[in-house]
């Protein structure tokens, strides 16, 4: 095992040994668990635990790099996929800061050369490795406060759709920081458990604002031309998406002429449709469709450490005030010496770091953070 992996592993082991934030998911014995190990490809899957104590004992012994638990419930969680007998799956959502196209990202993305592994400070323009001249790079992001605020904004939208439209009680939506750059949501509502992947995909469309028809807002296509005419749906515009869009366009079920004019302004039926599509996607919450539609996924287990950062996936009791760089930074603080690969700026536990020297002595949580990100090596 590499020196880096040893440092991370020992910090993770200490955490799993002392932690108090892991709780058993409901029906723990019907869930599939899996984990990945340091320095190994692939995942150990199809595991089952009878209690949280049994799981923690395994984590302390094995010290995996990442730990996952199925959103699905199975009659036989340890059997191969086809024989598990699916009994239903929790409804889950993932909001990932990296998918939001935020303008701040380039300013804190560190290119790491795909050929030689050399890290460089964030920069604009075409990449060229200063060590080997390589042109390809992986980019590692050190999320900033704006990234987290961006994810929180999407999270509030998601919660609004789930409570207002879908009628799920707020206290039945558990929000978690993902452990890196986003939030996970677990919905505790049995009525959604039996939904198959297709039904969840329809729900994703609802929340993300995909597929809203112009006809749903009352704009129809005149036969034989691209002109639009207005005929409101019988059920009105007073609720759900129709209300959201109606408010945005400042219309109601009496605004036949006004809506007709809006459609005309946008260039008729097709133009209005394109505009509506844009508005709806903008108003929807940007969730990862793959995660929600996968009914066999092993999803990061709450209370465990994310090896992309060394931060924990942890429950946010109050999303607004939650600060992942403090609240999810739970590793120990013994001093660890690291060799920096490039100059890095970040903030953890309220302290701002701006490391430009070649080597530094840091608390374990900060050292592990940089090693996990690939921006420092253990010295």
């Amino acid at each position, binding site marked *: 095992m590499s020196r880096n992996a040893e440092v991370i592993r020992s910090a993770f082991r200490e955490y799993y040994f002392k932690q108090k934030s892991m709780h058993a998911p409901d029906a723990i014995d019907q869930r599939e668990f899996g984990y990945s190990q340091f320095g190994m490809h692939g995942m150990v899957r199809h595991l089952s635990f009878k209690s949280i104590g049994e799981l923690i004992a395994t984590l302390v012994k094995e010290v995996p790099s990442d730990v996952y638990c199925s959103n699905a419930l199975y009659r036989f969680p340890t059997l191969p996929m086809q024989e598990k007998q699916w009994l239903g799956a929790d409804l889950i959502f993932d909001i990932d800061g990296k998918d939001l196209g935020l303008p701040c990202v380039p300013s804190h993305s560190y290119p790491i050369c795909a050929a030689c592994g050399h890290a460089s400070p964030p920069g604009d323009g075409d990449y060229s490795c200063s060590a080997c001249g390589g042109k390809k790079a992986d980019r590692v992001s050190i999320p900033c406060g704006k990234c987290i605020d961006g994810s929180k904004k999407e999270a509030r939208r998601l919660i609004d759709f789930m409570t207002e*439209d879908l009628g799920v009680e707020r206290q039945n939506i558990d929000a978690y920081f993902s452990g890196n750059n986003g939030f996970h949501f677990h919905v505790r509502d049995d009525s959604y458990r039996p939904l198959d992947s297709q039904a969840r995909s329809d*729900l994703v469309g609802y929340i*993300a604002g995909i597929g809203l028809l112009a006809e749903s807002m009352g704009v129809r296509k005149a036969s034989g031309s691209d002109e639009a005419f207005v005929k409101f749906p019988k059920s009105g515009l007073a609720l759900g998406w129709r209300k959201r869009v109606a408010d945005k366009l400042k219309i109601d079920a009496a605004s036949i002429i006004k809506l007709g004019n809006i459609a005309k302004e946008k260039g008729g039926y097709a133009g209005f449709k394109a505009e509506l599509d844009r508005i709806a996607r903008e108003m929807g919450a940007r969730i990862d469709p793959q995660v929600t539609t996968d009914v066999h996924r092993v999803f990061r287990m709450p209370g465990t450490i994310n090896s992309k950062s060394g931060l924990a996936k942890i429950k946010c009791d109050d999303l607004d005030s939650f600060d992942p760089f403090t609240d999810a930074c739970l590793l120990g603080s013994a001093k660890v010496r690291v060799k920096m690969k490039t100059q890095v700026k970040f903030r953890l536990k309220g302290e701002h770091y701006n490391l430009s020297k070649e080597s530094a002595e840091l608390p374990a949580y900060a050292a592990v953070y940089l090693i996990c990100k690939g921006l420092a090596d253990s010295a």
Partner: protein
Amino acid sequence: MPIRLGTGDLARYPFLNEAGEYLRQSGFGWEELDRPDMKDIIERAADRIRTGVDGSVYDKLDRYETEIITFLVTLIMVKSIGMEPALKKYALAEARRAEKFLTEDLKKQNEAQKRALFEKIFYDLFGLVIDVTEDGRLFKVKAADYLMRSSHFHEQEWKMINRLVSKGQVYLDADETVRLVRSELAVLITSRVHAMSLPPALPQAIREKADELRAALAPHYEYRAHAVTEYPPCVMHALEVMGKGENLPHSARLMLATYMLAIGKSKNEIVEMFKNAPDYNERITRYQVEHLAGTKGSRTKYSVPSCDKLRTENLCFATSDCAGIINPVQFGRRRK
């Protein structure tokens, strides 16, 4: 107070448990089907199957005694014809017949009658709870119950985003409410036929009619070959991205590979297509293609993702040529 249905309801909805109960109480037996006065019923049943398989709805409605026995004879006959595609079409036609009656009933009937229908058909048969809005114009279905059913419909207007949704309830009118359970009604009828066991000696009158129908229906179900003339825009887009050496998301790669497998491209040709990917590794790509083809790993053959799924994954680049298809493999298919 127990909810009671009238005999007219039993005639219109002969699949209700109460209709079976009527048959039991009347002491109906197989041997009666060979009686001369049953000839008319057998003829009606054959007519009902023929109409259904042709894609139309049988619209004659007689007294409930006749309707209940005709329905039973129709099921026996469809079972002994033993052609699955014919059964599917027949079951759908029965469901559409019931849909027509149900829609009329929901529009016409009074509050108590509606409630009885909800209870007996929607709840007893399908476990679906339906509520009525205060003004009585619209019906309310729980969001999860709605999604479970509507997501199998392909029309965009059934996507939940195109519905009035609030506080966990989806609002529907009478036609839509009934449409929601129609396919389940077809499934119910199909499964009743599957579960049925025919008597060892089938009454001759039914056997003869079934043989006649089987011979008449067989030519309808011969295999039709299709040829692919061009790639759909989603596949074209993926090929273009790949051609430029840009990174294609995993979901797009899955679509590309399953599509190529579905139209009969060889695994070698498919592996070759991914050569331009920035992270190309022949060994891994080959394994993945073989996995999707069902020859490695889980041994499950993966199907091409539906247009719906591609739309949610932002992989759909539909053009007007895509009208009417629900899966990329249907694009550009011309019957030979």
